[in-house]
């Protein structure tokens, strides 16, 4: 078992790893994921003291403290009981020796065997990792990238080490070679303690049992691979997953705002985090246990739920419209609420907005259920299906958008006007005097909808309920409005409850989805699951009825 405690590695005065604690059990594969520059490679190399000038903390391996071993003792371990698979590229293999010789060298360095014996063993290992026998005697420049990676793998495996550290073993490969290497890894990793360093989430998902997410030299989240990838708890983990092009996700890839910065006070991720509070830059959050096997380092305990609904019920004129609605919408996520007309979607929206009192159940916004009215509407806003109906025909665009500020009595007049302008720019509307003085009937459908969105956003809410807001728009304007919301989500961490009957649209923009039928939830989960493998017959019906341009 490999046990790392508070490992700190520095190059000169620049500390790269700020206290890493991890354990890898025998027979288990732990993946370290994160962007380049997070310190993943330094971690992998640092375990065998191959990186950095100084390393403090503790690395326990087979009862030995690796950090306090002599160089001689450490050499005995390297390549024999603990081996590294390096990232292929740029002469990682010696250009002047054959593949076979380079693998055989690992044997002769550690065991007093004849050259021939070592070569036989090397050849056997090379064949085991899938390098054809007639290519064993070639020099690296004659081998393809995939073959070179196999040689590097054979080099690590030839002495049957108990600990295998892999640094980006698949990153430089084409998809087919990658798949082959992953297949080889599948059997090669059995029985060993394995540390897989990669920025390729798919490789981690294929090979690893557990995953640890690194950011700026610290672990920010760890847990079982499948759980972390399905329900990330740290905003950074979610951002990583959203940036990764994945065949099963239909939502577009999203960039992580900002840049990784060194020398950040407190939580290293807070400059890029949409749910940061004042406390985030005060101190570094410790890695704390959330639930069995899941750890997260976040001052807010991970991604916060913006909307938690438990057992909500609403009756109108004695008839139960919605019943037993329970859902959780996280900060920065989109939840699609789909269902045919009359399934209770709008009732749910109006109840959540406090326009109608609930008849049963509770719901919490941003962790609280006893908001003062004004503060409540600073957190949650609603955009209606038909914006023109929600505008007073007597008010101009400028006045419409400014109205919430007037109600909340925020700032001076000049500040309000300025805020109106900025919000209109945010939603891609002109800010000319002429436009500000227009009346609702002078606006096109798309313009009106964006004015409505601007009005909803002007108080900087964290949760937006969009009730069929694009239903009356043509596809071009709809795309524009939806893009706009996605961008705001990236930048502000806006949580969206997107009510629609358009499955195709829902699939494009949502992280999770809820299917409502006759006032009840019939199916809920990740969008990729709900829309690709619908379980409930009603969902299946909806998916089949979804618009398609290419039949067959």
């Amino acid at each position, binding site marked *: 078992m490999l046990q790392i405690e508070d490992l700190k590695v520095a190059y000169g005065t620049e500390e790269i790893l700020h206290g890493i604690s991890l354990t890898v059990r025998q027979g288990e594969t732990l993946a370290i994921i994160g962007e380049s520059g997070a310190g993943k490679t330094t971690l992998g190399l640092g375990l065998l003291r*191959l990186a950095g000038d100084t390393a403090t903390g503790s690395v326990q391996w087979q009862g030995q403290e690796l950090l306090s071993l002599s160089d001689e003792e450490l050499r005995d371990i*390297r390549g024999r009981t603990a081996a590294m698979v390096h990232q292929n*590229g740029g*002469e*990682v*293999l010696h250009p*002047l020796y054959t593949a076979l010789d380079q693998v055989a060298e690992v044997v002769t360095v550690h065991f007093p065997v004849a050259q021939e014996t070592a070569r036989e063993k090397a050849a056997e290992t090379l064949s085991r990792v899938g390098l054809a026998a007639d290519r064993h005697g070639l*020099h690296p420049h004659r081998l393809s990238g995939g073959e070179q990676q196999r040689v590097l793998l054979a*080099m690590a495996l030839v002495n049957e080490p108990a600990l295998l550290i892999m640094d980006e073993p698949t990153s430089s490969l084409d998809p087919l070679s990658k798949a082959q290497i992953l297949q080889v890894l599948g059997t090669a990793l059995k029985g060993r303690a394995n540390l897989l360093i990669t920025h390729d989430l798919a490789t981690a998902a294929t090979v690893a049992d557990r995953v640890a997410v690194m950011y700026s030299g610290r672990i920010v989240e760890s847990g079982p691979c499948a759980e972390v990838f399905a329900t990330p708890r740290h905003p950074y983990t979610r951002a990583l997953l959203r940036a990764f092009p994945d065949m099963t996700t239909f939502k577009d890839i999203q960039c992580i705002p900002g840049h990784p910065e060194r020398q950040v006070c407190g939580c290293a991720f807070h400059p890029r985090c949409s749910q940061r509070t004042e406390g985030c830059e005060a101190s570094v959050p410790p890695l704390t246990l959330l639930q069995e096997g899941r750890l997260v380092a976040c001052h807010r305990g991970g991604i916060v739920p913006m909307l938690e609904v438990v057992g909500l019920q609403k009756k109108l004129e004695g008839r139960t419209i919605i019943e037993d609605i329970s859902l959780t919408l996280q900060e920065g996520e989109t939840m699609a609420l789909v269902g045919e007309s009359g399934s209770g979607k709008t009732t749910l929206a109006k109840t959540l907005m406090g326009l109608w009192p609930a008849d049963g159940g509770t719901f919490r916004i941003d962790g609280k259920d006893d908001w003062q009215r004004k503060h409540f509407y600073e957190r949650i806003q609603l955009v209606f299906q038909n914006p023109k109906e929600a505008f007073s025909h007597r008010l101009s665009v400028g006045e419409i958008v400014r109205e919430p500020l007037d109600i909340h009595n925020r700032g001076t007049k000049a500040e309000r006007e300025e805020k109106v302008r900025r919000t209109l720019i945010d939603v891609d509307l002109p800010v000319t005097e002429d436009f500000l003085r227009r009346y609702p009937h002078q606006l096109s459908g798309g313009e009106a909808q964006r004015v409505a969105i601007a009005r909803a956003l002007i108080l900087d809410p964290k949760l937006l309920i969009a009730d069929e807001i694009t239903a009356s728009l043509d596809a071009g304007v709809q795309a524009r409005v939806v893009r706009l919301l996605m961008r705001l989500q990236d930048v502000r961490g806006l949580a969206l409850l997107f009510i629609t009957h358009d499955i195709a649209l829902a699939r494009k923009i949502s992280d999770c989805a809820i299917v409502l039928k006759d006032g009840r939830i019939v199916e809920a989960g990740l969008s990729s699951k709900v829309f690709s493998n619908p379980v409930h017959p009603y969902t299946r019906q909806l998916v089949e009825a979804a618009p398609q341009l290419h039949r067959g």
Partner: protein
Amino acid sequence: MRVARLLMDYAIAFFILCSLGFVLPRLLPGDPFLAIYGEEAALSMTPEMKVEIYRRFALDQSWTEQFGAYVGSLLRGDLGWSYFFNTPVMRVMTGFLPWTLLLAGASLLISTVSGFVLGLESGSRKGSRWDKGVFAGLMLLGGVPDFFVGTLLLLGFAVIWPLFPLGGATTVYGGLTGWAWAIDVLRHLALPLASLVLARMTTMYLLCRNSTVALLRSPFLRTARSKGCDEVAIRYRHLGRSVLLPAATSAGLHLSHLFAGILMIEVVFGYPGMGTLLQRALAARDYPLLQGILLLASVAVLGVNFIVELLYPILDPRVKTVCTSNTGKN
């Protein structure tokens, strides 16, 4: 393809070198006979000898025929007649050649090996006091021309502090045999050899140090380290193997410097090799001999370089696959 092209280049180069001995004397104004043989030789020759020489070089005929005769005699190994020794140039040279070969072989071996080892050790300790010291010392030494290194050693260890003989290759009339003779030869060899090694080592040292420093951050060294190789294995088996490549090429390419150095060092120590012979030829204005010596040296260098080029693919397996694109190599 590569070899054919190389052979072509070397053949043309050889041809140019040989033609120098034909073209240059004829470029000078006056009788080419005088340019080739010098005035003193011309004066002391019998008319029959002159006629013989005119016939041999076809001096009274057209340029093309003269050239044909010239090349023909070169191809026969006939470098002309040494007027001073009254013997064919070729035979004069073979008498002096062994000592030069001894000096050349020993100095090439020692300077290459020591330059390689020092360069490797120094480069892999880049920035250390040891590296800086060796670097500065050898830089200084490399600035000293070969013949002046020889002069200093001669002054130091033969004149001021007479540890070694002043010159020659053996004690004349010593009548030494067996081991005593061998030791005598080595004692005479010591200073010229030391001068050559000191003067020539810097080139190899600097080259190896530079290559080592350039390779110091190579990923394959980290791979070797993670295999569990110790530092010596990493330095020699991994780094050294890669440094050997430019080192071997350079040893071949700098052979001409070594030969030039030998000619001069021999003069300093009166070592009875080609250099001393060259000086005597100069003193006696024995032009055919003079030209024969330099031509032989150039051709020897050409030959060795060709062999190095041929061996290069063995040292660097990557060359084989890029034989079609010969641009910018060398």
